[in-house]
């Protein structure tokens, strides 16, 4: 039983990591209508910021002039740093892209994610390149005697952080600020006509959303303890989008639910295939898993186009 519990804790840690990123995306797409197709890029920025700020010195290859690592800050500062760095990068990118809409923004942000990927591969003095950044301190790991206790503690911390993010977002999207975001999403010309600076609101939502993705990445790095550019593939952007769509975009509870359901489906379908498919066809089983995932997504879009829990029609608790 302890084994099952141990797996469940591990699974929920991953769910909460993804949930934070989904909440970030939900602010951008669900509330503001910004098509960010570069989620994984900001996730990677956060992960690398955490690694560089808190990690040990990485081996320097003979042809490398210098190696920025071994700063060795404590975890909390690494977390703040990761949020800060991803917010700063998002701010710069946001300034340039704030006037882009829909597919134009999507293409641009997708390109930015590729650029970030190439930087992680090639800027070895900073990121350790394709070698991967290893030995990132895992917070709470040394305080607890067993891996199980460490996982329980990390999960508790994840719940606290995810809860805080959720609460904060619920507050701001129900505030006047949040209502402007929806106005911008629905009709930005109308929003501008009533005197709202649509670009500013878009930029703010973009920066906050990306900072949350960075936070998720940082928590991933600190949990796993080693990262490599190949951990952050474009498919992760797709996963996070799927979580938001299945859960219900424009609803923060939907974002949490989507992370749970989609990651659960993603992983349990693999376990299911390995149990059900006869040994002879195991090597073909992977395809079945992908088909299963695809079917559920298409099914959601067909039968629950607004997601499992869609957006609430009410914009304020003061309205009946």
């Amino acid at each position, binding site marked *: 039983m302890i084994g099952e519990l141990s*797996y469940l804790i591990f*699974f929920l840690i991953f769910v909460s990591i993804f949930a934070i990123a989904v909440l970030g995306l939900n602010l951008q797409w669900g509330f503001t209508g910004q098509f960010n197709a570069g989620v994984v890029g900001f996730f990677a920025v956060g992960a690398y910021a955490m690694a560089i700020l808190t990690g040990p010195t990485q081996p320097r*290859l003979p042809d490398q002039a210098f190696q920025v690592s071994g700063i060795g800050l404590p975890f909390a500062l690494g977390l703040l740093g990761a949020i800060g760095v991803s917010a700063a990068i998002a701010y710069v990118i946001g300034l340039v892209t704030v006037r882009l809409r829909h597919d134009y923004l999507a293409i641009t942000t997708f390109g930015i994610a590729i650029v970030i990927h190439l930087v992680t591969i090639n800027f070895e003095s900073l990121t350790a390149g394709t070698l991967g950044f290893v030995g990132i301190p895992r917070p709470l790991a040394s305080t607890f005697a067993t891996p199980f206790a460490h996982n329980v503690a990390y999960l508790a911390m994840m719940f606290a952080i995810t809860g805080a993010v959720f609460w904060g977002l619920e507050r701001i999207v129900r505030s006047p600020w949040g209502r402007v975001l929806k106005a911008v999403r629905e009709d930005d010309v109308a929003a501008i006509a009533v005197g709202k600076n649509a670009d500013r609101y878009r930029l703010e939502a973009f920066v906050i959303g990306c900072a949350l993705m960075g936070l998720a990445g940082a928590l991933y790095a600190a949990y796993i*303890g080693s990262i490599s550019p190949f951990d952050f593939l474009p498919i992760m952007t797709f996963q996070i989008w799927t979580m938001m769509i299945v859960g219900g975009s424009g609803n923060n509870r939907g974002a949490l639910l989507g992370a749970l359901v989609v990651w*659960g489906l993603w992983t349990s379908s693999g376990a299911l295939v390995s149990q059900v498919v006869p040994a002879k066809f195991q*090597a073909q089983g992977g*395809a079945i*898993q*992908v088909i299963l995932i695809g079917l559920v997504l298409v099914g959601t879009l067909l039968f629950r186009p607004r997601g499992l829990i869609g957006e609430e029609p009410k914009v304020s608790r003061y309205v009946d």
Partner: protein
Amino acid sequence: MKFVFRAFTLTALLLLALPMAANAQQTCPIKLGGILPITGSLASIGKPISDAAQMAVDDINKAGGIKGCQVEFILRDDQTQTPVALDAAKFLIEVQRVPAIIGPVPSAAAIPMASTFAVQSKVVLSTCCATSPTLTTLAQEGKSGGYFFRTLPTTKTQAYSLARIAIEAGYRRTSVVWANNDNGRFTFSDFQKAFEKLGGKVAADASFNENQPSYRAEVQKALGGNPDSVLFIAFPQDGATVVREWLQLGGTQNMLVINGLRSEEFIKAVGPRFLQKMIGYDVAQVKGPSVDAFNAAWNTKFGRAPATPGLHSTYDSVMVVALAMQLAKEVNGTEIRDNMRKALTLNGEVVFPGSDGFKKASDLIKAGKAIRYVGATGPLQYDQYGDVSAPTMQWKIDADGKIVEGGTRTLDQVQELFKQVDG
């Protein structure tokens, strides 16, 4: 919120119920986990690798299994994604309680798995293909607890041998064009180290990002150092692109290539007549009677030659684990770890791949005799860090584009070379 809670509980229950049905018995069958990329970017090599692993398990079961139990191979597809691979590993270890896992293929997934899960849960990781030297470093620092094993030599064997080959061919100024992945990165820096130690100099080097339509800029950069020869570290598709551009821009035909380019696809794409001066490197284990036996068995089973990378080493990574299980007093991770090397005892009786080989090995073990498994990759030996070293060889291409092997370097000579470079 109620809905969220209900959905949450439901998923949690489902996840718990799923494995419990399969988890009732502990003794028979004996479980073996597998985490391999059947889909995703490594699918083209991952699928045949999975077939090879399954073939090994079939052979073991046909020979009567381990300790009278059949082996159940629980294969999980990691979709070439690290988070998915980590989740599958955790599930196999905690819920299905496998004592050993075959895989993963990319080093990016192998590093966190070896340094956390394997050592914490005392589960053996036996991989065919993760070649990153970082894994050796982890073993040296004791961070993988000795639970990590691989059947493919690290990039160092390849890099040092290529440096030696270059010197012997009379090259002194070699440019290096390398794919920027963990394999290419390490091969390049180790090659540079060895080549300079042996009296050569890297004229220029250019790294490229994989899967691009053209590498003209990189080739220009490599040409810039006025080299007398060039080393390409790439896989067939990119390799063909970059070599063609190299020749078009007037680069020398004094080429060296890694074993990844030992492929008909590459030779055909470039044209054999341009490759007459090319020297290739490979591990020399890929011949001998045990290898022929595997190749023949594969051919019968799948109706094609075992041509994609990693097949032979995957088969061996399963076989050695199975033999270690057979040797172990009790099937658990630590016992398997401690018996991995006993399956390869140097003066033991030689056993070959295939179900007959496994049956013979089982009988010998029962009789208390030492065994030496000589695998689909030929004779192999783990060092103290779970790495294998191997004899090497070089190959060339004849006028018809056929691969001609030669220039074998024995294991001792390879060790000698290591000493010469590392001091």
